[in-house]
């Protein structure tokens, strides 16, 4: 097991390296370097540009030097937690994204838990009662769920709540807690707001996972070991949960590999629609105003988080299933 874990961790290093290169390329993509953009912003704001300060920055970021030197300077600063400077916010990036990153993680993990909690029982039900009205109902619902982009769902939900319930569903906090320091009341307030975006985000994943759970369990149910257990007089409910569900659960854990990127990805756009204080809206404005160090840092961190999430899921899977760690 220990060997497997080390192997998996070593394998993520090239992945994270590749992610850093992709993020760096995206930082470099807009024409001109970020300093020219910075100077333009300063000048349009009527501020005097200090040439000495500009030169110092130019030297610090290695602008004008070969690309690989720039990359090395950028990555070595990033590794110690210095993500550069956001000219749009006039603050270091690391100060800006801390809490928003936390919110993104909370939202993604909450949706992931929701995906599991809802799709597991429904998937089992659909497989055990195959072709029953309930199965048809859930199959239909899950196909619809797969077909609706989550930002549209968020939009419709917001419109519906606004027009018919007269409430606004946006945000993650009530007004009085938005900028308050962390406290128990603030956590409770967060939980009271979190479930709506979490459900919106989870719908697609739930639909997909119900299909997978159903298909896997249907593959397992006709197996001989099930018949044997049944012939020995085991109670049906206990039997299903104890044997075939456990086997069918495997893909459940391994799908974190694509459920998680999907959730993180979806959280960006759902957050923009529902105006949540996650990295989503910040990434969008940063990209629109070409605040590239901020955008690059968010991109890098989101991807690294996804990779770490996948790594954890793989380790969990190996812990659950000996066939994987001995293979």
């Amino acid at each position: 097991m220990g060997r497997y874990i080390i192997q998996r961790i070593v394998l993520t290093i090239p992945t994270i390296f590749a992610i850093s290169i992709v993020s760096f390329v995206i930082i470099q993509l807009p024409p001109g370097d970020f300093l020219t953009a910075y100077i333009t912003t300063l000048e349009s704001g009527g501020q005097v540009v200090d040439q000495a300060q500009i030169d110092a920055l130019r030297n610090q970021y290695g602008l004008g030097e070969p690309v690989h030197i720039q990359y090395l300077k950028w990555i070595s600063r990033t590794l110690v937690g210095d993500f550069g400077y956001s000219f749009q916010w006039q603050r270091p990036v690391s100060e800006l994204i801390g809490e928003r990153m936390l919110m993104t993680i909370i939202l993604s993990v909450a949706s992931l838990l929701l995906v599991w909690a809802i799709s597991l029982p429904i998937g089992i039900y659909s497989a055990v009662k195959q072709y029953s009205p309930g199965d048809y109902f859930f199959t239909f619902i899950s196909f619809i769920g797969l077909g609706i982009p989550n930002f549209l769902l968020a939009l419709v939900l917001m419109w519906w709540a606004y027009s018919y319930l007269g409430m606004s569903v946006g945000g993650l906090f009530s007004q009085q807690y938005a900028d308050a320091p962390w406290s128990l009341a603030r956590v409770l307030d967060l939980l009271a707001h979190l479930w709506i975006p979490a459900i919106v985000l989870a719908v697609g994943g739930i639909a997909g996972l119900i299909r997978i759970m159903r298909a896997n369990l249907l593959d397992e149910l006709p197996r001989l070991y099930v018949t044997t257990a049944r012939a020995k007089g085991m109670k049906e409910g206990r039997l299903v949960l104890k044997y075939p569900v456990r086997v069918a659960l495997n893909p459940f854990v391994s799908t974190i590999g694509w459920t998680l990127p999907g959730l993180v990805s979806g959280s960006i756009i759902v957050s923009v629609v529902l105006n949540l204080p996650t990295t989503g809206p910040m990434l969008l404005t940063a990209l629109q105003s070409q605040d590239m160090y901020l955008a690059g840092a968010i991109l890098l961190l989101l991807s690294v988080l996804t990779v770490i999430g996948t790594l954890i899921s793989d380790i969990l899977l190996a812990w659950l299933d000996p066939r994987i760690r001995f293979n």
Partner: protein
Amino acid sequence: MLRRILGRGQPVAAGVPAATAEPTQPLETETEKHDYAVASEWELMWYKFKRHRLALICGVVVLLLYVVAAFVEFIAPYNPEAQNPAAAYQAPTRVHFVDAEGNFHLQPFVYGTTSQRNPDTFELEFVEDTSVIHPLQLFVRGDSYRMWGLFDANLHLFGVEDPNVRLYLLGADRQGRDMFSRIVHGTRISMSIGLVGVVMSFVIGIVVGGISGYFGGTVDLVVQRIIEFIRSMPTIPLWLGLAAALPADWSILQIYFAITVILSLIGWTGLAQVVRGRALALREEDFIMAARLSGTSRTRIIVRHMVPSFMSHIIAALTLAVPEMIIAETALSFLGLGLRYPAISWGVLLQEAQNLRSIALAPWLLAPGAMVVIAVLALNFFGDGLRDAADPYKR
């Protein structure tokens, strides 16, 4: 590596000749039974596909959408850019069969409307003028357009004769433009971007999947790693990052192709895995072995034996990839980083619906979203039916 266990195993394509294959389900008629024995592979697929009613219906919907996409100028009653400030946020025009006096008309008709500003709320209010009946007619002369850049025309599929009466089937937007015409026009970009994007991803997928399968060994390993890497990245932030770098002064056509390239750069991995998976499974088949033993050349094996065997699976996979592209384009354009005005796609139209106040005032602004859902669902069910039919010899 771990994804191998994911989901059901891919069905193995059977290379059994049609004559020896057992019919899967009870056959409906004697004639079909006779046909079955001599039917070609594609005919068998068609039989199987036909049984999947929902997929068949959705196939028709998909076909209709592409027909609409081809003839937008003719089908839309108005020029999508024709503004009418007096009709800002006008509610959908009601189509009547019974007039104000209670008489029934076989031909549907509409009433003209006059708008006035409410002195208290400053909102435009619309009143139907029930004195004159304007029947809805087929093949009406209206706004002129240039069809496919080839010839000028002004014929529209339907509309009202009187140019002073405007028909707003799905209401009007902020500038009084006809939402229905705009949605019809959006069909062209939204539906085609899926196709073009999928073709592009398919080309990348085939080339990379082919290289990976052909060389095998280290190359295959590296390619598989790259694919896993791309799949582990959250796609929307990446798309956004790439799309944000597109120069603002590019033309619609340039942006359109750039967006498809961006979508396919990340979207090809799924298709490459399908191609590689099918190719690997087929390599082990007896009929491939037989062909190899009888001295058939490598190219001939690929072209004559392998490609026809996995063609149907590939078509199904392609169909299922189109809706993903459509959603991606819609999302990008909705966020303002994809296509921009003056291009018209469903995502661009949805930008108008970003503001909660405008949707509360004019819920019909969400109609392009409904179109996205219809298109995506139809393509999904259609693709599902194709996938089930792709292997007519299975069990």
